[in-house]
């Protein structure tokens, strides 16, 4: 109904205003900055500027030992530290040719899927906050805290987990995991349902999200999209299915796919993925319970982690998309070069394309639906 009213770009008098959004702005999660050229409310151009959270993680990695780099990976995507840890560990394991015990892989799957739920919850919640719906954020964030509780009882940290070690995991699941999970599962589902009730069919929400920053599948692939943002565009690509790691091929789950690649589809894809994650955790825990209690959780790691010289790239499906680590080793105890391929880095570079011709309010919606995490973006 309101499409025709959207001011078309470029029809103005040329009196454009440059609006600087960020790095300190309520809608910029972390320290992002967008320099927007606007004609009234509509955007002529929006150019993101990044680097405000650049901490030189890649340089740091070259100066730390393989083991010491694990806590640094926590600080990449601070919304879901565990997939970051595991991705890095998988890369090193690949470099060393280590076989991770199955039970450890299951624990990793369980924890990663929990982290995925937590991450999606934050993303959806923040999307709601940015579009003015404050309440779903709280319903979701409460459940995220409960997930963090599981993390805390697993190895003692809530946010920066330092999960796992090279070759396995550092702890077994807490004894009361099943109890906690059974308690948590309906709550997560309930929170998601409530969010859907408050948002999905609400006309205001639909108007705000449907068709906003829509992106075609070809463009998305060309720009290097991965993860929910790519799936929202209609490309059925999920590393968990396509390049199974950590026994993901043993689980039965669906990969939700959107159609238009707009904010609404990204939101829906994330909502469905949470449900699928719950399914995966259930299956993984079932498999986990079938394992003997004293099944190994660590591979035999050499005393000093000194992988042979070589270069590998290993990626996994983090909540945001393909999170890859390229490690070049020269055979010494420190990695020679670590390259992190953050998912939102590739997505965010298409931001000017995504918001072209939209309104300022859509810029915010688009940004939060991409789930850009500054820590991961700038490294």
């Amino acid at each position: 109904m309101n499409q025709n009213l959207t001011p078309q770009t470029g029809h103005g008098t040329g009196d454009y205003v440059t609006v600087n959004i960020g790095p300190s702005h309520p809608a910029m999660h972390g320290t992002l900055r967008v320099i927007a050229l606007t004609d009234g409310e509509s955007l002529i151009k929006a150019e993101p500027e990044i680097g405000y959270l650049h901490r030189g993680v890649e340089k740091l990695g070259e100066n730390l030992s393989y083991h010491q780099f694990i806590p640094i990976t926590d600080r990449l995507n601070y919304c879901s530290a565990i997939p970051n840890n595991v991705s890095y560990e998988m890369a090193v394991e690949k470099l060393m040719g280590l076989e991770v015990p199955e039970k450890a892989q299951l624990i990793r799957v369980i924890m990663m899927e929990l982290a995925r739920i937590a991450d999606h919850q934050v993303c959806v919640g923040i999307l709601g906050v940015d579009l003015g719906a404050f309440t779903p954020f709280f319903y979701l964030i409460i459940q995220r805290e409960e997930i963090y509780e599981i993390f805390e009882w697993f190895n003692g940290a809530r946010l920066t987990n330092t999960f796992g070690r090279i070759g396995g995991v550092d702890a077994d699941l807490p004894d009361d995991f099943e109890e906690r999970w059974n308690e948590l599962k309906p709550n997560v589902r309930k929170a998601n349902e409530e969010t859907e009730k408050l948002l999905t069919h609400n006309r205001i929400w639909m108007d705000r999200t449907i068709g906003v920053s829509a992106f075609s599948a070809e463009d998305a692939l060309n720009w290097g999209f991965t993860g929910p943002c790519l799936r929202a565009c209609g490309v059925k690509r999920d590393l968990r299915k396509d390049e199974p790691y950590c026994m993901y091929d043993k689980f039965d789950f669906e990969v939700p796919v959107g159609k238009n690649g707009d904010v609404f589809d990204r939101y829906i894809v994330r909502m469905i993925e949470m449900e699928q994650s719950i399914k995966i955790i259930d299956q993984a825990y079932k498999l986990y319970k079938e394992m003997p209690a004293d099944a190994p959780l660590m591979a035999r790691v050499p005393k000093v982690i000194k992988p042979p010289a070589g270069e590998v790239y290993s990626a996994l499906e983090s909540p945001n998309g393909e999170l890859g680590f390229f490690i070049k080793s020269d055979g010494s105890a420190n990695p020679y070069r670590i390259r992190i391929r953050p998912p939102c880095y590739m997505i965010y570079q298409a931001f000017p394309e995504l918001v072209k011709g939209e309104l300022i309010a859509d810029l915010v919606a688009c940004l939060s639906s991409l789930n850009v995490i500054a820590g991961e973006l700038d490294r």
Partner: protein
Amino acid sequence: MAKPVVKKEYTLTERIYLWEILKGMKLTWGHFWFNFKACWRPGPHTIPTCWQYPEDRTREISPVFRGEHYLQRDDKGREVCIACGMCAKICPAKCITVKKGKREEGEEDKYASKTYPASFQIDLLRCIFCGFCEETCPKNAIVLGREFELARFSKEECILDKRKLLLNYRKAKEEGKLKPPKKRVPVVPAPPKPEKAEGGEIKKSKAAAPGKALKKPVEKVKSTEQVEATQNKEAAEKEK
């Protein structure tokens, strides 16, 4: 780069705004009413999802929580740290400084081992609470306790010296918050061929742990010890 045209048919209830809005309001009312009733419950912890933090400390902190550090004493009250410096070595944030001291005659009731830390400093401002120091310690001397209130009034207070670390231990002990020793995870059994690396690297290390690790049957070598050993070798290399 044409954007895809998006068409979505709205159903009638979606179209008229109000129906879904009323449904949403029903939901929020449910939450409001539930919490409103909960408000009248006694005690600081009224609304179930919210802990009134400084008053309400009923939330259980995980026994493996990684909080403020303390230095362990053994049953006889002796310091167990041997100042091997492995925690300082592994620390990714380089926040630990240890100076080694030699135990004098007559100090056996103070220090459990021949060496002890003459000074032991942890810079809490640098610490990232990864727990590697705890994991690598051959004597389980340094522990990240359950204390999570780390706010201080000055930078100097944020540097934990040995006295403070031992005080933390006493405090944790009095409050019954001593951390249970970390459960070690089982490792894949060794292949029949003995590992080449083991023999060569540990001999120069002054720490006691790797020796122990060596003597144990291979099946029982645990991950923590491997990390220790890693550090040992690094320490050894450094000394070379």
